[in-house]
């Protein structure tokens, strides 16, 4: 087994090659991209990034994406916390059916919901707002949060609840003061997955926005078709969408394996 390290190494090279190529393109001028084929930029330029940071139609996309993603994370986690507690501690009429129904929404193809969502949010005047996208993403993020949190909460011994109630804590007081600190890492993992799925989704985000709340990924598709393919800027925009993900992974790197270990993605 001396050559065992070769397999993950090759796989990582395979993973990083396309990303390196994107980075390479983002540091070239458009003329160089189209005329010379080179493995690294010969005339290093940061102009493509400058375009993105100075043109409001580009950088507003990042701000919009960030706004609706964080709204979604807050809504999903705060709604899911009490529900996950209920599922992990009590049995009540219809609990299994409700859980299954929630799960089906995680599995529902967004393509099915694109058109009805468009009509629903238009009719209540929420079209092209951040909250519309955040609510739409709740469709798959809330079931996911309930599922992940329920796993973490079931790992907390029930004696903790009972002791606290004997000590005279009210339920909300107990929940905030004692229970939440106990599952802090679970909340972190949940927020990570909510961030991830809301950040990468495009179909619903694009359908529900026009100008004011347009996410960066939708702006990218628009530019591909409109401005005669400015490959350099496109590559730079792509690189910048990878950054937030990379940062988030760095912060939760010690918890990722645990979140996956619960197997509840």
């Amino acid at each position, binding site marked *: 087994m001396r050559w*065992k*390290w070769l*397999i*993950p190494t090759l*796989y*990582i090279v*395979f*993973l*990083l090659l*396309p*990303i390196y*190529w994107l980075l390479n393109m983002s540091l070239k001028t458009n003329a160089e991209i189209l005329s010379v*084929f080179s493995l690294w930029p010969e005339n290093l330029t940061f102009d493509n990034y400058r375009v993105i940071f100075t043109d409001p139609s580009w950088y507003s996309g990042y701000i919009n994406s960030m706004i609706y993603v964080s709204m979604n994370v807050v809504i999903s986690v705060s709604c899911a916390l*009490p*529900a996950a507690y*209920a*599922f992990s*501690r009590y049995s*009540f*009429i219809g*609990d299994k059916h*409700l859980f*299954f129904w*929630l799960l*089906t*929404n995680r*599995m529902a*193809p*967004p*393509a*099915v*919901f*694109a*058109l009805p*969502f468009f009509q629903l949010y238009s009719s209540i005047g929420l079209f092209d707002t951040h909250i519309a996208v955040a*609510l739409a993403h*709740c*469709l798959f993020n809330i079931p996911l949060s*309930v599922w992940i949190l329920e796993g973490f909460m079931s790992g907390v011994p029930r004696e903790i609840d009972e002791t606290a109630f004997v000590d005279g804590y009210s339920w909300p007081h107990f929940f905030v003061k004692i229970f939440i600190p106990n599952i802090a890492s679970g909340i972190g993992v949940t927020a990570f997955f909510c961030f*991830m799925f809301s*950040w*990468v*989704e*495009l*179909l619903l985000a694009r359908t529900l926005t026009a100008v004011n709340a347009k996410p*960066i*990924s939708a702006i990218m*598709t628009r530019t591909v078709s409109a401005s005669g393919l400015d490959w350099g800027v*496109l590559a730079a925009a*792509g690189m910048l969408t*990878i950054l937030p*993900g*990379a940062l988030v992974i760095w912060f939760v790197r010690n918890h*990722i*394996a645990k979140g*996956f*270990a619960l*197997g*509840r*993605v």
Partner: protein
Amino acid sequence: MIEKKANQKAWFMVLPVFLVVAFSAIIPLMTVVNYSVQDTFGNNQFFWVGMDWFRDLLHSERFHDAFLRQVIFSAIILTIEIPLGIAIALAMPRKGWGVPVCLITMALPLLIPWNVVGTIWQIFGRVDIGLLGHTLTALGIDYNYTQDSVAAWITIIIMDVWHWTSLVVLLCYAGLCSIPDAYYQAAKIDGASRIAVFRYIQLPKMQRVLLIAVLLRFMDSFMIYTEPFVITGGGPGNSTTFMSIDLVKMAIGQFDLGPAAAMSLIYFLVILLLCWVFFTVMSNIGEESSKGGT
């Protein structure tokens, strides 16, 4: 396990989740059901057509082709990604500096927005400016994913392997890490071969996560939309038009609400059936392991 306390007040805790999800799931779904049994000539005038759209759809070539392509695609994805994911997870280091390096780089593709994944591969595969396309052409291989449907399929499959194998790896790795050292020591004392260790210790312990990996990969590949849409737009011809792409074309491109709604419902029912199987198998395994474990 201790029995859970029966308490109907728990419904109040579930209520916020129920309301939010019901708002964004039940209302749109009812709209779809509504459209699927009606026809319109515009002006918001609708009339009842019953099951006609469903009958038409189930007999249409277009639907059959899209469905078949979808099933073949999911089958190919599973046969490549699952064994590859297991192999990589088995070879990953268990301790030392290699662990965070592997975890972070492998999780990276999972957090790239899906259309950026499409864009990355669109650029990477292009014959004129992409590393992959350029290299293949330089080697004398005829490769052009915008014109050749085989090349388009291969590109999308490699792209999906690039994008999602990490999920299988991370799940399997988590499963492997949960095996206590004592198992391996016992195997060593018994003189078990590498294959025997895999067959009788590692594979059974990974059973649960593997099941989740298979089902997640199956469902997500069954719903794939953004990446092939960006890379090929469903082409060349219709060769990479999968179910979701076809559906969006029908609903938003052509505004054929009736057939699109009927297709949505059939599509959703297929997924629902799979989800039910998933849920049943999962809870059975959960019960068995809790019986066996305690």
